């Protein structure tokens, strides 16, 4: 009887462990296996069994790290993230605070309206904005031209970062606003009352009471937004056909996709993917550790 009882927790854990193993550990293990191998062809490489998988050790990693496009891609993504995360979270916080003001009208409608773009899939959003970025078909440029101005070039050079950031801000602000707003609603209203009695203005309440109290959710949204930024893929992939300036290696994920599925280099792509995963994990853990330490002190 005692024996069975000891097995019970394992029984409860089993589904999770099996699913974790099948859909997480196993694919990662397979990627690691691929990354240490390579496909070698003999002679012309035509005909049956012309390809053979061979062990290459860390060769694929050496190639992946030596490719300047990977680092350049990481740089582009960092620049994009540096523009996106503060803008998006700043707006989300601002909207959440405004919605939380006691005298706000049309609260439910505004909340829904700001949230709605989040429900639009990234690819659709990118297509939509892509049309607006093309000067010859965009109503925005039409109006600017009618007013005698020439619009900015959003599909080349620096403008491209603005274009991509804009799509993500448009799509992501609503979700983050809801998370922050929910945290704000959980703050006991007595705190505000006593603050008002002490002569605090709404701005002071927001700055001195609300923001410090909802810091955990700010950290959380920052963390998730950063990870989402590192994984940026759909937006640049969708804008790519519209411009000459978005290469297939614009972001590290795009490079992995190109190597694996467009150029047939599954093995080198696996190595690059493992490198990206390792860096992401490292960044996530050090960030969490930093936050925990600050929270503890």
């Amino acid at each position, binding site marked *: 009887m005692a024996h069975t009882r000891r097995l019970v927790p394992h029984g409860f854990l089993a589904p999770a462990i099996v699913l974790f193993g099948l859909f997480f550990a196993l694919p990662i293990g397979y990627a690691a296996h691929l990354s240490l191998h390579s*496909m*070698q*062809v*003999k*002679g*012309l*490489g*035509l*005909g*049956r*069994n*012309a*390809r053979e998988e061979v062990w290459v050790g860390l060769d694929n990693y050496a190639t992946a790290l030596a490719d300047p496009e990977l680092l350049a891609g990481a740089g582009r993504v960092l620049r994009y993230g540096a523009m996106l995360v503060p803008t998006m979270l700043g707006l989300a916080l601002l909207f959440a605070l405004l919605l939380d003001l006691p005298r706000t009208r049309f609260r439910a409608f505004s909340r829904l309206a700001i949230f709605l773009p989040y429900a639009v899939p990234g690819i659709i959003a990118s297509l939509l904005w892509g*049309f607006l970025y*093309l*000067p*010859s*078909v965009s109503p925005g440029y039409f109006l600017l031209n009618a007013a005698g101005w020439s619009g900015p070039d959003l599909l*080349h050079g620096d403008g491209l970062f603005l274009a991509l950031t804009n799509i993500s801000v448009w799509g992501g602000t609503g979700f983050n606003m809801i998370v922050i707003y929910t945290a704000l609603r959980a703050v006991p209203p007595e705190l505000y009352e006593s603050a008002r009695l002490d002569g605090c203005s709404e701005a002071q309440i927001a700055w001195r009471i609300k923001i410090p109290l909802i810091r955990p959710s700010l950290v959380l949204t920052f963390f998730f937004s950063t990870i989402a930024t590192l994984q940026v893929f759909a937006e640049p992939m969708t804008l790519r*056909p*519209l*411009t*000459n*300036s978005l*290469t*297939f*290696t614009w972001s590290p994920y795009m490079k992995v996709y*190109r190597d694996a*599925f*467009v*150029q*047939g*280099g599954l093995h080198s792509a696996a190595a690059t993917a493992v490198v990206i995963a390792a860096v992401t994990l490292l960044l996530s853990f050090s960030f969490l550790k930093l936050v925990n330490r600050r929270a503890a002190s």
Partner: protein
Amino acid sequence: MQRRTALAVIALAGSLALTGCDGGAPAATGPVELTMWSWASLQKVAEMWNADHPDIKVTVQEQGGGDELVTKVITAAKAGDGPDLVQAEYQMIPTLVSNDVLTDVAEFAGGAEDSFSESVWKQVTLGSPAVYAIPQDTAPLALFYREDLFTQFGLAVPKTWTEFAETARQLKQKDPNRALTTFSSNDAGLFAGLSQQAGATWWQTSGDTWKVGVDDESSRKVADFWGGLVKDGVIDNQPMYTPAWNKALNDGTQIAWVSAVWAPGTLTTSAPDTKGKWKMAPLPQWTAGAAKTGSWGGSATGITGKAAKDGKAQAAAKFATWLNTDPKAIAALVKEAGVYPAATAAQSSGALTTPEFFPNQPDFYALAADIAKGTAAAGWGPNVNVAYNTFKDAFGKAATEKSSFPAALRTVHETTVADMKKNGFKIEG
């Protein structure tokens, strides 16, 4: 509760057993079932076959465009899965053969050789005794231009590339808001075709060694020519197939397009307001009086290794041969899928009726057959996808920055060669 779970488990096991049967070898009785992946709409043509051939039943599954389909079919083949027949562009055939996707059906389909021109047939045999696919359509390049706007601006249809450049300059002078055409970097197939016209063969084999000629003299000449036009600002440098490009074709901001015989189909959707205003002319020539052209696309019906493994290769080859050589099938192909057939007999037969979008050019296909006669041979290699993708990025950058096109071509060449070496291909030079 427990009993219900038990029942569910039994049901699940039962369905697993059933699917297990489905995936197995074909039953001894009943027709041979073939599946085909294609992007052209071949459903109706397959139905015609099915009605006449109760012993072989073909199901067509329509798929997305060329590159995606290649990725999908290679991935499926690695998993021992996928269709029995697949539509493949000629340039992708070596890649598919090299990845063990296509099988040799020379013993079943070798007789089809006489129906096709030598240069087309060579692309499905890769110059070996094997036959990997049956040619379906070809796509010789031609010049498409707005007849009305050429008349309005007093432009003559250019017969040589020198005249083409001159025409582009004249138009820019007369109306700076218009451009003769654009140089688009988003499909290397067009540039490859233009290079073939100039005499390039990008991949060749001798014995068991590859020779890559992406950066040969003829291709460099083509790169230099288009780079010059972009640099001087006499043509546009924005990519094709964007909403902006559609608009430019539709409202006459761009008045010509170097394309292939399938262009009417694209123009129908891209520039719907310009019906009856376009005309096709032979591609401008490097030497006055010559009549050469290259190809942009064109596809064949490949028979997969999976079909061979399941013992269906013969049936698949029989269908592929019928689909692409039988006059009735070709007539349906032309009607349903709008292709320009590869079979030489069909190119001058009554199967081809003037494209609806070109009512002003009743001799469209007679002219096409004439142009097709001068199609230069193409040679493809096992990593065309690498070359094409490098092309997009390198020429995209060069077109935007108006920098050297031959330098971009060099990048494409070097990346292609490095990729082949890395994979272990024997390569010359």
